[in-house]
C-alpha cells in the first residue's frame, strides 16, 4: 500500500512536524516503503493467534499505594525554560 500526500500531511499535523513542500515526495516515498514492508505481515495467517500486548510473556507487577516521591520542584524546574510562581510556563494556549 502506498501512502498519499494527504495522509502524510495528516500524519505530519498529528505529529506536529513541519514539512516543506519540496520534502513531501521524498517522505511519501520513504514512508510508503515502510508501510509496504509491514504489509507483508497481513499475509500471515493469524486467526488462531492471541494478540500480543507485549513481547515479554509476563504480567504487570504492582506497587503498594504509598507515597515514595518527595517534592523536588526546585531541582526539576531548573530544567524548564520558564517558570513563574511554581508553574511551568508555555506559550499562551488560546481557549
Amino acid at each position, binding site marked *: 500500500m502506498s501512502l498519499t500526500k494527504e495522509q502524510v500531511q495528516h500524519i505530519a499535523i498529528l505529529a506536529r512536524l513541519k514539512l516543506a513542500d519540496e520534502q513531501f515526495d521524498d517522505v511519501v516515498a520513504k514512508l510508503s516503503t515502510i508501510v509496504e514492508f509491514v504489509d507483508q505481515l497481513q499475509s500471515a495467517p493469524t486467526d488462531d493467534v492471541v494478540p500480543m500486548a507485549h513481547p515479554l510473556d509476563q504480567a504487570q507487577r504492582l506497587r503498594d*499505594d504509598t507515597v515514595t516521591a518527595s517534592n523536588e520542584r526546585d531541582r526539576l524546574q531548573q530544567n524548564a525554560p520558564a517558570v513563574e510562581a511554581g508553574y511551568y510556563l508555555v506559550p499562551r494556549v488560546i*481557549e
Partner: protein
Amino acid sequence: MSTAWETVIGLEIHTQLATTSKIFSGSPTAYGAEPNTQANLVDLGYPGVLPVLNAEVVRMACKFGLAVNARIAPRSVFARKNYFYPDLPKGYQISQYELPIVFDGELQIETAAGDEKRIGITRAHLEEDAGKSVHEGFSQATGIDLNRAGTPLLEIVSEPDLRSASEAIAYMRKIHTIVRYLGISDGNMQEGSFRCDANVSVRPRGQAELGTRTELKNLNSFRFVEKAINYEIERQIDVLEDGGEVVQETRLYDSDKDETRPMRSKEEANDYRYFPDPDLLPVEISEDYIAAVRESLPELPDAKRKRFVDDYGLRPDDAGILILSLPLADFFEATAAATAAAPQVAANWVIGELSAALNRDGVAIADSRIAAGALARLLDRIEDNTISGKIAKEVFEAMWDGEGSADDIIESRGLRQITDSSAIDSVVDAVIAANPGQAAEYRAGKEKLLGFFVGQVMKETQGKANPAQVNEALKRRLKAE
C-alpha cells in the same frame, strides 16, 4: 419538546480514584497542594523513567466492576492515547483501549414515572489524568501545574440506554453513590473528582438507527448535566426540523449563557493512534483475587434501601433519601438502634430537622453537633410522652446550639409535658368558660372549632400539654355541658 423525536444519551463518567499515590508513580495525590510540588520525574514524562502500576487502583476498579455486576478482565492492557497538549507532558495519556479492566456491567435506575430501568455499562477503564492549564495571571503565557498529572481515573462508559436528561441524572447519581459506598472516590465534583461527558443524539421516534451525536464536555455538576443535555436536545431537534443535519462534534457547555457551542476544530484531535504501551505489561487478575475483592464489598445502596424498607419498615422514598449518603444512612441506623421510638420516627428526624440544620449551617454529617445517641435520647422523650413532638423541635435546636442533652434542656427550660389529667381538665374547663360563644357553636355542630380550643389550651400551657389528652378532654368536656 416535540414528542416526534426520541433522545439517546450515553455518559462517560471520569471518577478520580481515592488513592494515596498516583497511578504510575509514588507522588502524592492530595488536592490543593502548591503547583508542581506533587509532580516527579515519572509524572513529568522525563526520558528513561518507567511507570509502575499502583495495586490499589486495580483493586478499586475490580470493586467497581463487581458492584455493577460487570465482568473483570482476566487480562487487560494499557494503551497510549496520543495527542499534544501542554498539560500532557509525555505527548500521550496512558489509558486502556481494546482490553479494559471492567466490561459488560449494568445497574438499575428509577425513571421519573417510578419504573425500574436497566442501564448497560459498556466498560470501565483505568487511565491517568492530565495536568492543569492556568490561563489567568500570566502575561502572554499559560501556566502549567502537573500535580494532577498521573492521578488515577476510572472512566465509566454507559451504553446509549438513557432516553432523557432526567434518566441521565438518575444514572449519574447512582454511579456517584456507588463509588462513594465503595470508598473508591470522594465524588467531589467541585474538585473535579467526578466529571461527566455526555453523548447526545436524537432520532425520529420508532427509527432503529441512531442519529448523529454530539459530545458535551465540561459538565461539572448534576444541574449542568441536566441543563446542557436539555439545551442540546432542543438544539438538535431545531436543526433537524429546519431540514438541517447535526454535525458530529464536541461541544462545550457554557453555564453562564446556558448553551452549548462547538469547540474549535483545532482543539479536537480525534485521531489518537492508540497502541499498547510497551512500558507496561498486561494486568492479570486471578479468580481468587476477584473472589477476595468480592468478599470485601460493603453493602451497596440498592441492598441497603431494600433492607431499610424490609427491616425498619421505612417508607421507600425516605429509605431512598437516607441511602444517598452513607454517613447519613449510618447516622439513621445508629439513632434507630439507640431509641425506643419507631425507626420511621428516627428517619423523619434525620431527614427533617437534622438534615435541615446541617444544610443551614453548612456542617457535614460527620461533624454533626448532635450525635446519633443524643438524638435517640430526644426521640425517647417523645416516645415516653415527656415532651410533645412540637416541643422536641425546640429541644433539638437547643441541643444543636450546644445547651446540653435532651434531658438537661427539658429540665432547665421546664418543658416537661403536662400529662396530669386533672391539670389538663382544669385548663380545658377554663378555656371553655372563657369562650362561651365558640363552645355553643361547637355543640351546634361546628366541630371544626375543636382546633381553636386545642390552640387556646396549648397557648395557656405554653405548648406543654399532651396533645392527645387535650383533644380527648376537650371533646369530653364540650359534650358534657
